[in-house]
């Protein structure tokens, strides 16, 4: 059975994506960006398509950028507010998906707190499912937008990340962003260094052992050494209750990204990413988050063209993304 990473029907995962598939995504992202830059800022490429966002977890960036992306392609967008819908009354995921199908949705963008939920949705939905984050497992469009930003800033001449070193710091155990980035960064040729407090890197020593080009480091300094990019992960307050982190202050002391730390060990032009939302002053210093190395707001903006590309390629495969709608009367 082939991997389902990109079936041209669903976007469930980036695991198993080859570099050529990823470059096709980046190419579609360029086309999407051209549409956004045009005078109308939109296309009618997906006119008549009904896109529904179904988010079981709170989200600002991912949901809004998916909705804006769908609108920019001319699709109709609606959104299930989980708290005020039948879902809140205990309707199962399968029943909700079947209901959306009956109501005419062609695409479901699903965010769910359980790993694998999009696989379940895909098995009962005859349209397309896009994974907008499933539990600890995967966040494909975040990894794609991170890749897009990194290729632009630290990419090699051939457009890959060959010879580049990327550090991912923090709570790996609970991070779908880290898991998906591992796949895309490796496919792009980057070397990946991981680090974080031991209780929050559970399982990753073994994962690194079985993965070429991935190292689990025992300190922030080791992970940052020679890094061309560093990605800080959000530290969630629940980790304090679980005892995995003794205090935010101790976390900052050992693992917080500060300009001094980056400057002393990383590559001179090292860039900084964060998937958001940030705890400034914990996993990342405000000076770094707002400083010249930071690509954090560029990541957020990148979400729209990347998600346009994701919607387009999921529905239309390799077909080139059509151009922008012209202003009436212009040529």
């Amino acid at each position, binding site marked *: *059975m*082939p*991997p*389902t*990473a990109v*079936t041209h029907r669903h976007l*469930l*995962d980036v*695991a*198993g994506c080859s570099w050529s598939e990823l470059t096709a995504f980046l190419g579609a992202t360029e086309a999407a960006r051209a549409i956004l830059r045009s005078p109308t800022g939109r296309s009618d490429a997906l006119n008549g398509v009904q896109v529904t966002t179904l988010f079981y977890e709170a989200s600002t960036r991912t949901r809004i950028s998916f909705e804006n992306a769908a609108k920019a392609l001319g699709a109709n967008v609606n959104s299930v507010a989980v708290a005020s819908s039948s879902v809140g009354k205990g309707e*199962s*995921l*399968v029943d909700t998906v079947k209901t959306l199908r009956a109501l005419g949705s062609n695409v479901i963008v699903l965010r*769910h707190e*359980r*790993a*694998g*939920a999009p*696989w*379940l949705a*895909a*098995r009962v939905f005859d349209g397309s499912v896009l994974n907008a984050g*499933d*539990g*600890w*497992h*995967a966040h494909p469009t975040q990894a794609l937008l991170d890749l897009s930003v990194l290729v632009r800033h630290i990419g090699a001449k051939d457009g890959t990340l060959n010879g580049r070193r990327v550090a991912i710091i923090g709570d790996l155990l609970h991070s*779908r962003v880290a*898991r998906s980035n591992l*796949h895309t960064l490796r496919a792009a040729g980057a070397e990946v260094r991981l680090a974080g407090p031991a209780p929050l890197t*559970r*399982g*990753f020593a*073994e*994962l690194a052992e*079985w993965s070429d080009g991935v190292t689990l480091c025992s300190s922030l300094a080791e992970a940052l050494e020679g890094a061309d990019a560093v990605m800080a992960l959000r530290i969630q307050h629940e980790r304090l209750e679980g005892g995995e982190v003794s205090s935010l202050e101790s976390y900052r002391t050992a693992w917080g990204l500060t300009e001094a730390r980056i400057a002393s060990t990383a590559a001179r032009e090292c860039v900084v990413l964060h998937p958001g939302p940030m705890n400034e002053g914990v996993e990342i210093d405000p000076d770094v988050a707002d400083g010249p190395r930071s690509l954090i707001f560029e990541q957020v903006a990148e979400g729209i063209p990347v998600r346009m590309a994701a919607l387009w390629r999921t529905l239309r495969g390799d077909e080139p993304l059509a151009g922008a709608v012209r202003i009436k009367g212009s040529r």
Partner: protein
Amino acid sequence: MSRPRAERTLLTDHWVVDPVSRRAGVASIEVHSGKVARLEWRDGVAEARRTFIEGGEPGAKDPKRLVLPALVDLHAHFRQPGSEASEDVASGEAAAAHGGYGAVALMPNSEPTADHPALLRELTRSAAPRGLTLMPIAAATLGRAGAALSPMAELAAAGAVAFSDDGSPIADPARFRSALITAGALGLPLIEHCEDPSLTKGGEAAEGLVATTLGLRPWPAAGEFSAVVRNIALLREALRDEPRARLHLTHLSTAQALDAVRAARAEGLPITCDITPHHLALTDAWIAGDQRWAWEYSDRRPTQRTPTADAYNTNLRVCPPLRNAADAAACRAALRDGTASAIATDHAPHSREKKEVEFGLAANGIAGVETALSTLLAARAAGEFPLSLVAALLTTGPAAVLNRPALARGLAVGGSASLLVADLGATWVPSRTTLVGRSINTPLLGRSLPGVVLLTLVNGEVAWKAE
């Protein structure tokens, strides 16, 4: 339903394995008025004995029809009373008969819990339209809550064959020790599900590469091991007060837990354990969509690192979770060296509503009573077990754990015939159509399996006959 008596059944030149008399080879069996009237070994008794002991297998020219004593299951859930949408005694019994079983021990986690003599009596009275021997295992503590002991003496008098809080390990060590002593004084084993919930809370898949890759919450091997070690220590102490105390650990799944049992048995402790067909034959890589049998791995390295469209199949969610190929190999090694002496199905039917949900929210359990024999035959076909061991693990092994050797004596001449006939040369595919039980929550759906059960006789009556 009416139970057709096996008036006269002639099984001429079948491959027969009888772990009770320890004989195997080509034989002819005549069943008359429900009794085994005749059993003749074609090449003589001495040769049949040698064939059994040496693990002799049927050759290319030998018959493909296999006869075994009807199988014995130590561990099944028929969901009655309480969850009849998933299974009831009649549907579970039919499923067991289809699987070649003649006797099944039922775990007490019904609703209400089987902790009251009246409930046990009702179960044994109402049950078994097909005539299978259904044996209640009573709860060790009231409501399986781990606090007050159940009325064990009354439950034993009402027909309990063992005590267990299966699914809810007895957390309090003092209570566990008391349960061992009280059950032992009644001559019955305590069957324990070994799990330390403080280590396994929220666990979705075995801790390891597959769980890490798929983002599933880890269920560590130590969650089983620490409970096994504690229980062995408590057994050692309980024996000082009650020399008849006996402990049986069910569905062990890890190499380290089995090593602990091996050492305890070497020490002479009265401890036994069983293994399920799924833990010896499947691995956690199935959750990612890799569907190789556990013995098809040449090394530990899981090759399925990217989930397929079939990934996160909730029919693979089970407790304890499926483990890696090395643990599955340790399960098979333990069965070969006698550390584990029985296969138990842990037949755990669940309705579609409980399984067609997110992986981490799905009920734990695999419906296994119809596929156990075929799974063992698949392992045998790969050279993992000789047929004589498969037969023993499914009959005399579990009967010995319950200290009821008669359960496996279905081929004894002059006694009631309890036996199965299976076609070793045929295959079948589990599906809604071919499975008989009410719930079909097995990861083996759609997979071609060796060994088709053609006939199951229980106490001289036809419990299952293929169309």
